[in-house]
């Protein structure tokens, strides 16, 4: 079966972006530097959506592109789909 990948954009990001339609319990690969690491998905994650590759506690920062893109609204486990159901937008124009 063709390997499914999720893309890590910056090394310290704690979420990756799926570049395949990943189903619940699917194993997917992430290229980290010159290594390839395997994770299991806890949910159905469509192409372009995010998956946590680190545990993120409620109130913790969601990091993508090396920057905080939002705050976890509930505890997020490794392999969880990360989207509007578990992320708060904390952006204000200052």
């Amino acid at each position, binding site marked *: 079966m063709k390997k499914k990948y999720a893309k890590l954009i910056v090394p310290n990001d704690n979420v990756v972006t799926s570049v395949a339609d990943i189903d619940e319990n699917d194993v997917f690969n992430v290229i980290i530097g010159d290594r390839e690491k395997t994770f299991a998905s806890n949910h159905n994650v469509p192409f372009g959506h995010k998956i946590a590759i680190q545990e993120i506690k409620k109130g913790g920062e969601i990091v993508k592109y090396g*920057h905080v893109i939002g705050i976890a609204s509930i505890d997020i486990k490794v392999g969880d789909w990360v989207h509007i159901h578990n992320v708060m937008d904390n952006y204000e124009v200052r």
Partner: protein
Amino acid sequence: MEFYGFPRPDGQYGARNFVALMPIVGCVNAVALHIEKLIRGTRSITHHQGCLHPPLDTEQVTRTLVNLGKNPNCAAVLLIGLGCEMVKLEEVLEGIRESKKPVEAVMVHELGGMLETVSKGAQMAADMVLEASKIRREKTGLNNLVFCTKCGSSDTTSGLSSNLVVGEVCRMLTEIGGTFIQGEVCDIMGGEYALKELCVNPEEGDKIVGFVKDLYERGLAVGADTRGCQMTAGNVAGGLTTLVEKALGANAKGQMVPIQSALLYGERPGGPGRHIMATPGHGFENLTGGAAGGAQLILFTTGRGAPNGHPVIPAVKVCGNAKTNLTMGSHIDIDVSSVIEEAESIQQAGQRLFELAVDVASGRLTKAEILNFDSQMEILIKGPVM
């Protein structure tokens, strides 16, 4: 990689070599269009501004016209005025003359009508084209390249591939002394503090934050929260969760390259490196901003397939969506979908794009040019239309 450009008297090198027919007010666009049909080697640079502006827009339109005229792709400029407009012909003429390229002007009220102006202007343009045709491309350093960038008809692949690949070109170009201009304040919104961190001078970072605040406040003035306007249902369905995430994906067109300055709309950068210009996301005004900034071409990323080019600068369409590359291939110049499938690294795809961009700067045509899909442009105004 070797860049062959048309040498200009001010030391810039053009990627193209046409005589620009530039109305200083939209009322005389027809004159430019008639001359363009008559005389080979001319390009009309029509727009709808130049009159009934508050002073800040008269200034912005004047600055943009001057700097468009100075763009190295224009071998010479024929200005066309009506005679009663707010933008002053003398100011535009004197401004472009600083570049020492040939620049002339015709005025419709003075010559007594369109036919008289077309006749006189066409004769002048013909002489200018003959002189321009004598200029030969010369080999010059890649440090003389100025690229601008924009994304249009974006989708989730933009932030995962094409924008990152353009960011790699930004890194390579600026490392060898070239210039890179990025903008799209609406897309910066949410990512302004990330960009500020990259500014070599914090004051320039404050200006970028100010661009976003200005857009936000102008939105509020007409009852719109521009933060909400930016996140579409399609974005959320595609996997984008927050505005900050969307902005960072758009900002990736410059990667982590340090930012030298924040530019006004249509302003020329004072030196090489990466710069952020206060351009809108809307393509017609956006590309004009980059062209006025002195870019020879634009690296235009797209997900679903944006076909438009620009009359002054070629647009290199970069697409990371494998499906769009098949369905809209006649509008795409380079396919970088391999990056998504991990079949090619961002560095490798960046190298391919850089080589293509240098070829385009040296004469290779883009799809938008071949299809004549590049005749329209606009100049950004900020205030009310009176």
